[in-house]
């Protein structure tokens, strides 16, 4: 055993840590850097589903019933995996209409009915109290076993004021008030709470896995050992079978009932709704939760059965409470530190549930029970009256305290009679009553307020009669006669065999009757009654929530509202700051019902105020408050239809407008692009002209200067004169070659060039070019070699053009090879698709950044002393491309350059021009 102060101190330290985490998360949220905006945090916080019930109760149930603890976890797993679209729709609806609780959700759908909101809240409170009692019971019995020595009995009778559980309940209430109701600003999310809950989920998982590993591997030799020993014992072996615990008769119906129950509870328990829907930061986080949450449930259930079996094997029949095996096993074996950690894990499971549940329920109680009553009094209904936010906060705090005290009361009165799991299931069955109204409301427009009231009342009545009353009776507070014999001795009214329905366990029986009555009444009455206008409009807004973007939501309101009145109203419930913001951000597109008069709000603004108020006081109360502050005209069903029609027309118009503006933008973009292209073409033309000018003027400069000097200087020696004349001739040749090339280029580019394609042999063409230039290579003492795999390479092309290409490449190579030991190799390779010719030199090579540019017109390499026109390579490339081939260069600076071109076999096809005479032109580039 551990000393009481140590356990209490550790527990308090843990709560302080939780509070620190929450505080830190709130700070971060205020700074705009939320730590809960993560799908992992979201998924972990959903694991608030696993409470003390899971932590302690599952083992207890497994110890009695074997694998019957499982359906409670299979239900949520299925709900998450199969039903995530439902959750997503709930999130979207709650986000759009600022819904803050499950009561608000249902009430808002059915015409913002205060009656429904109140009823749902009432059912919740009654149904949830046992569940909170369960958590108190778990912590208090956990604490008892931690602090009493094994022999000593912990069941010393004490009066209520000496009962530590009472103080536990009060301490928790204080803690929750700090947690959830610190801010005056109540509509915002509880970021700190979510962070703390996610942290608690981690702690309880780690603690449970730790004790599982300890029991299985520390006390036994692994899982196999536990099962082997259990199988050896006839009593325990039964636990491992499916049909255990006397359920054999109605095994399938009970599995089905439990799974369904857990599914519905998972969706509509106030704390699950709070965490999954209200606190959701981003719809997309749901995708991660869909698999993380089931994995979490799997992990936390992994060791349940082994621990249960181990506990039974270990303690035998000496009456240890199976609910507390996770604590008693480490305690008895002296692992006190582990036991303390496990206790903290259990504490985190219980506090997590109580915190979220109490915050959610207190919001519901405040908004849906207390507010409507307050609004009946003159003081609150009136248009005067100060800021009410502080009052709202007080109501919520009070609700938290009362809820926990009720939990304690239940624990005090009935707690000892039931195992943890049975208490929890009673709560589950109560919450399941919300399913027909909520699910029906999301997917069926036909449900009406009257139908929901009938359904809820019928379902709740059956729940009380068939489940709650018998449980109280069995606790000894009432005579069990009416359970055993039926009220007034009428056997057919027996609460656990209603109308003689037997063969079901009491839970399945109750679930069957309550849901049967609930759904029957809901559907029957809905079909029979006609929805009021507001119900019809809310039905449209809920069921079709995905169909409309926010701006095109129809506004179902007509009347006359002074902006001043609305402002006053908002200030009272939201505080001056938020109210100011609300009216500053004025609406976007003009909605229907806009009023031109100054000082009057249009329908959209009224609706915005109402939505914001709904976030603070619930949609039903918000409706009442807005209605009291403005002059409204009654909305008929016809009005709803008309507004809907207008809204959809508005949507059509605005969509058409959007389309038009998109296509205009598109046209503008295209025009701009075309303009850019023209501009860049213009620049290209400019550059081209400038380059041509340069290339023409350079030879002209020499020619003019030399001739002028010869003209001026009659006494010039003859040799000098001869030398100058030779230069003039060379420069003239260069000029005419340039003119020829420019024209050639222009013709090729314009597609007016003449092509004479014939069947020819490429080796012969290369040979011709090589022979005509070989002399110049010899002058420079350079080697020129031709390598070919085959003696003949037939191809369809224009002979003169290919000679021109080869001469260009060869004379370029000649220009760049070194004075000494220059070397050029021509290589021809044949392949299936065509022929590749490569001209490789051992010159200085070309830098990588220059390589793509050398095929541009008039681009010349800086290193070149001897210059060409700058058109040789572009023309060559054009020619090769004309025959469907391509030309490229590879080079490593310092190791020479390799110019290659590839000609496909089918090249002739692209040269269809008829043969015709063409002007003679210079085709090679002998001179630099």
């Amino acid at each position, binding site marked *: 055993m551990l000393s009481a102060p140590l356990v209490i101190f550790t527990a308090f330290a843990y709560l302080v840590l939780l509070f620190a985490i929450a505080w830190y998360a709130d700070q971060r949220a205020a700074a705009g850097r939320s730590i809960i905006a993560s799908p992992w945090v979201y998924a972990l916080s959903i694991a608030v589903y696993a409470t003390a019930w899971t932590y302690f109760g599952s083992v207890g149930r497994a110890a009695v019933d074997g694998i019957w603890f499982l359906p409670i976890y299979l239900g949520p797993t299925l709900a998450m995996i199969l039903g995530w679209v439902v959750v997503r729709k709930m999130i979207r609806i709650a986000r759009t209409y600022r819904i803050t609780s499950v009561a608000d959700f249902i009430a808002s759908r059915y015409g913002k009915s205060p009656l429904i909101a109140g009823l749902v809240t009432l059912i919740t409170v009654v149904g949830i109290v046992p569940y909170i009692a369960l958590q108190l019971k778990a912590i208090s019995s956990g604490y008892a076993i931690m602090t009493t020595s094994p022999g000593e009995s912990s069941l010393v009778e004490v009066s209520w004021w000496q009962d530590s559980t009472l103080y536990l309940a009060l301490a928790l209430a204080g803690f929750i008030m700090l947690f959830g109701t610190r801010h005056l600003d109540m509509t915002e999310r509880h970021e700190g709470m979510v962070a703390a809950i996610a942290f608690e989920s981690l702690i309880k998982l780690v603690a449970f896995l730790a004790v599982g590993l300890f029991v299985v591997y520390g006390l036994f030799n692994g899982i196999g050992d536990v099962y082997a020993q259990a199988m050896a014992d006839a009593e325990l072996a039964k636990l491992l079978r499916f049909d255990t615990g006397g359920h054999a008769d109605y095994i399938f119906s009970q599995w089905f009932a439990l799974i369904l129950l857990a599914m519905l509870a998972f969706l509509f328990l106030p704390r699950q709704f709070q965490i999954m829907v209200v606190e959701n930061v981003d719809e997309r986080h749901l995708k991660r939760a869909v698999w993380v949450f089931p994995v979490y449930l799997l992990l936390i259930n992994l060791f349940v059965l082994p621990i249960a079996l181990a506990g039974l094997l270990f303690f035998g029949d000496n009456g240890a409470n199976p609910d507390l095996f996770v604590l008693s096993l480490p305690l008895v074996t002296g692992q006190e530190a582990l036991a303390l950690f496990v206790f903290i894990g259990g504490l985190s499971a219980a506090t997590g549930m109580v915190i979220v549940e109490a915050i959610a329920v207190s919001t519901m109680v405040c908004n849906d029970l207390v507010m409507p009553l307050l609004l009946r009094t003159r003081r609150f209904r009136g248009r005067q009256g100060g800021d009410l936010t502080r009052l709202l906060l007080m109501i919520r705090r009070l609700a938290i305290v009362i809820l926990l005290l009720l939990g304690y009361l239940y624990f005090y009165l009935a707690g000892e009679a039931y195992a943890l799991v049975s208490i929890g299931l009673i709560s589950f069955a109560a919450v399941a009553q919300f399913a027909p109204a909520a699910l029906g409301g999301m997917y069926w427009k036909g449900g009406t307020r009257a139908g929901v009231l009938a359904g809820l009342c019928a379902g709740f009545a059956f729940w009380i009669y068939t489940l709650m009353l018998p449980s109280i009776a069995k606790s000894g507070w009432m005579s069990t006669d009416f359970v055993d014999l039926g009220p007034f001795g009428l056997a057919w009214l027996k609460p656990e065999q209603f109308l003689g329905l037997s063969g079901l366990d009491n839970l399945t029986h109750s679930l069957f009757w309550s849901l049967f009555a609930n759904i029957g009444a809901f559907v029957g009455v809905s079909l029979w009654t006609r929805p009021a206008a507001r119900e019809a409009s809310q039905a449209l807004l809920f069921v079709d929530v995905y169909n409309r973007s926010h701006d095109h939501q129809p506004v179902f309101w007509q009347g006359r509202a002074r902006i001043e009145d609305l402002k006053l109203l908002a200030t009272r419930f939201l505080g001056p700051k938020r109210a100011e913001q609300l009216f500053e951000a004025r609406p976007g597109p003009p909605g229907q019902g806009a009023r031109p008069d100054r000082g009057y709000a249009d329908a959209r603004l009224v609706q915005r105020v109402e939505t914001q108020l709904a976030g603070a006081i619930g949609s039903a109360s918000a409706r009442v408050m807005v209605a009291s502050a403005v002059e409204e005209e009654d909305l008929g069903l016809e009005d709803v239809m008309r507004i809907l029609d207008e809204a959809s027309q508005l949507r059509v118009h605005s969509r058409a407008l959007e389309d038009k503006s998109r296509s205009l933008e598109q046209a503008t973009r295209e025009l701009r692009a075309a303009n850019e292209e023209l501009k860049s073409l213009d620049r290209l033309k400019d550059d081209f002209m400038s380059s041509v000018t*340069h290339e023409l*003027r350079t030879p*002209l400069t*020499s*020619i*003019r200067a030399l001739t002028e000097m010869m003209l001026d200087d009659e006494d010039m020696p003859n040799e000098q004169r001869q030398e*100058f004349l030779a230069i003039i001739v060379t420069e003239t040749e260069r000029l005419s070659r340039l003119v020829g090339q420019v024209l050639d280029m222009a013709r090729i580019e314009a597609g007016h060039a003449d092509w004479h394609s014939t069947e020819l042999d490429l080796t012969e063409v290369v040979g011709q070019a090589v022979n005509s230039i070989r002399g110049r290579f010899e002058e420079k003492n350079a080697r020129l070699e031709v390598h070919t795999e085959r003696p003949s390479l037939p191809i369809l092309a224009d002979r003169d053009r290919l000679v021109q290409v080869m001469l260009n490449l060869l004379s370029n190579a000649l220009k760049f090879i070194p004075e000494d030991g220059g070397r050029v190799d021509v290589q021809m390779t044949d392949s299936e698709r065509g022929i590749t010719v490569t001209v490789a030199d051992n010159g200085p090579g070309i830098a990588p950044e220059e390589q793509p540019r050398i095929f541009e017109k008039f681009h010349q390499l800086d290193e070149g002393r001897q210059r060409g026109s700058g058109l040789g390579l572009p023309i060559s490339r054009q020619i090769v491309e004309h025959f469907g081939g391509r030309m490229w260069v590879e080079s490593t600076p310092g190791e020479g350059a390799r110019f290659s071109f590839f000609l496909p076999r089918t090249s002739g096809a692209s040269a269809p021009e008829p043969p015709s005479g063409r002007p003679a032109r210079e085709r090679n580039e002998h001179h630099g």
Partner: protein
Amino acid sequence: MGSKILIADDEPNIVISLEYLMRREGYEVEVARDGDEALSMIQRDRPDLVLLDAMMPGKSGFEVCQAVRDDDRLAGTQILMLTAKGRETDVAKGKALGADAYIIKPFSTRELAEKVRSMLGNEP
């Protein structure tokens, strides 16, 4: 002592004609084939006037001009830019960079000789 002129151009035939022309005018002539060579020769030999082609491999004429003007020790060096491009922007660029005069190719030998004479103060 005659003035010293540096001819900086990468076109061999233009160099031949300029060299002949300037020698005939009685100047001492040196030749540079690209921008880098021209700049190092200006720094080393301190010519009185540079006939500087705008488009040369290595440093362009513009860059050489700018480098000379940035160097206070070379303040006495006059620069006559020659260009075959002749777009107004090129002329403006040369002037802005501190060239003393600008002549467009092809030029009249008489005009060029006249200009060089006037820049060097009528004194060959």
